[in-house]
């Protein structure tokens, strides 16, 4: 039952425990972890903007919860990654420029309306679920522990998105239309999630091969879309390149807002 013991250890994994443990990530692992951390961080930043704006109080709480979980994952990955260069999570989050962020482009896409946020979250959560499940078996024990903890939380995120997909898809004519539009808007960014990750080269046994996650993703997401009375979009894939620091126009303003105070006081700690 190695899986069980893995989970027991992982319960305690946070950015703080990783920092205290002082484990130094090998350079290649660190580069890979930065990409994973950026995915979670950028999406958490997007979702954080919903708090106090959601359609009902319960959703303020739910979206806040999801954002908080993702921020926790981001902090763990970035703390671990930063150890390779003698830095901190905040050095990485606040003092890198746009082209030095390696998140996949899906995560920087704007919130749009609630339906578009749910569409993006559905794709993200099912993707994270598969990714973290596979990563929890990584030969790198810290990555495995972070992933094993995260996967339990992401299970709930998947359920939240699927429930809303059904409510909006089958609710009213308007909600159906909006949900379809939301899916159409995020769909071009789905393919990139399963394309080659240049940061995972030479990390066999440690990194997850993105292509290996597609079948499970399709098995969950495609029928859910159909069950919700919606159509799986056929839009061509965007050009991608997030893992190489290539981004859509949306990331720059997001970073400007996120980093503004920290950069105004570069010598300060908070």
């Amino acid at each position, binding site marked *: 039952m190695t899986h069980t013991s893995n989970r027991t250890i992982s319960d305690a994994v946070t*950015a703080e425990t990783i920092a205290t443990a002082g484990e130094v990530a090998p350079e290649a692992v660190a580069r890979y972890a930065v990409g994973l951390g950026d995915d979670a*961080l950028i999406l958490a*930043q997007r979702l*954080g*903007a919903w*708090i*106090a*704006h*959601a*359609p*009902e*109080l*319960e*959703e*303020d*709480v739910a979206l*806040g*919860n999801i*954002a*908080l979980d993702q*921020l*926790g994952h*981001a*902090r763990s990955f*970035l703390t671990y990654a930063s150890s390779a260069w003698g830095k901190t*999570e*905040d050095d990485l*989050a*606040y003092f890198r420029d746009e082209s030095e962020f390696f998140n996949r482009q899906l995560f920087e896409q704007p919130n749009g*309306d*609630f*339906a578009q946020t749910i569409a993006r979250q559905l794709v993200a959560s099912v993707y994270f679920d598969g990714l973290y499940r596979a990563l929890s078996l990584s030969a790198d024990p810290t990555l495995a522990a972070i992933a094993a903890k995260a996967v339990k939380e992401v299970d709930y995120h998947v359920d939240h998105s699927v429930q809303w997909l*059904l*409510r*909006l898809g*089958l*609710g*009213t004519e*308007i*909600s159906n239309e*909006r949900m379809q539009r939301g899916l159409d808007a995020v769909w071009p960014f789905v393919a990139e999630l399963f394309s080659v990750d240049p940061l995972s080269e030479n990390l066999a046994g440690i990194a997850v091969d993105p292509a290996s996650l597609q079948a499970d993703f399709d098995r969950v997401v495609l029928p859910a879309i159909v069950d919700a009375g919606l159509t799986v979009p056929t839009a061509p894939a965007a050009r991608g390149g997030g893992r190489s620091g290539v981004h859509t126009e949306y990331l720059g303003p997001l970073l400007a*807002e*996120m980093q*503004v*105070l*920290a950069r105004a*006081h570069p*010598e*300060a*700690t*908070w």
Partner: protein
Amino acid sequence: MSVRAANTDEGTVDEAGAARFAELLANEQRVEPTDWMPEGYRKTLIRQISQHAHSEIIGMQPEGNWITRAPSLKRKAILMAKVQDEAGHGLYLYSAAQTLGIDRETMFDQLITGAAKYSSIFNYPTPTWADMGSIGWLVDGAAICNQVPLCRASYGPYGRAMVRICKEESFHQRQGFEILLHLMRGTEAQRAMAQESVNRWYAPALMMFGPPDDDSPNSRQSMAWNIKRFSNDDLRQRFVDMLVPQAEILGVTLPDPHIKWNEERGHFDFGDLDWTEFHEVLAGNGPANTIRVARRREAHEDGAWVREAARAYADARAAEAGASQKIAS
């Protein structure tokens, strides 16, 4: 049940119910939703609990304002969790008010149409990060002084909700204190940011206890009903006595030259507050009144189609379940 009927039928007095109510109060026991209670007691509680709930909901905004710009990831996480707690408090409190026979939709409607009041403190803006510290230390600090006695409020659902809320609030206050402490131990710019923020929040926080006792029309009755336990001025004094030593630890100056230990009273003396300002903000002329209500209203209106979809979906599922039950039977 006759108890319930006596409650809703204004004018008739359920003598046994009234005697029981008086006995509960005299014995410092809880009044529960099914007990008889005077109409005034019910109305006072609805007003107070819903205002408190609204305050939590509106209070999400001044802090939510900094979630996307929090200067470290740890602070971002703490702030997100805090704003989420506030939504949670709003939800418990709306539920407590619902036990008195008002529904959440009505209360929410009163909020977004501007008919209901909420704590004026949230009509002040949060232009700097240090305001996250001041809100925690001063605003949540004042809220705790107000709220700890409410854990003993005679109405059961309210008192019990307050027990849980107070636990989280005292955590929030420590977090705010810690934000300020960190700023005060930081760079010169950070210290200046902290002091400037404390200067802005100090007096409004003291006004959170409400007008002076001789100008507080509802207090006396609320105290007789064991809802309110201490007078506004007593609570304000208690708060100042708590703040002064904490300000010393922080190294911030409280913006009142009249603060001085009074040996005879065993309390700190402090200067008069500008109640004209308080009444202005209360009357809706605070720096952020319009923005706060408009923003909540906007969120509510933008989300109307979502709630409608959720309702339609739930209704359709219920109808399906009903149909299949019919077939089964």
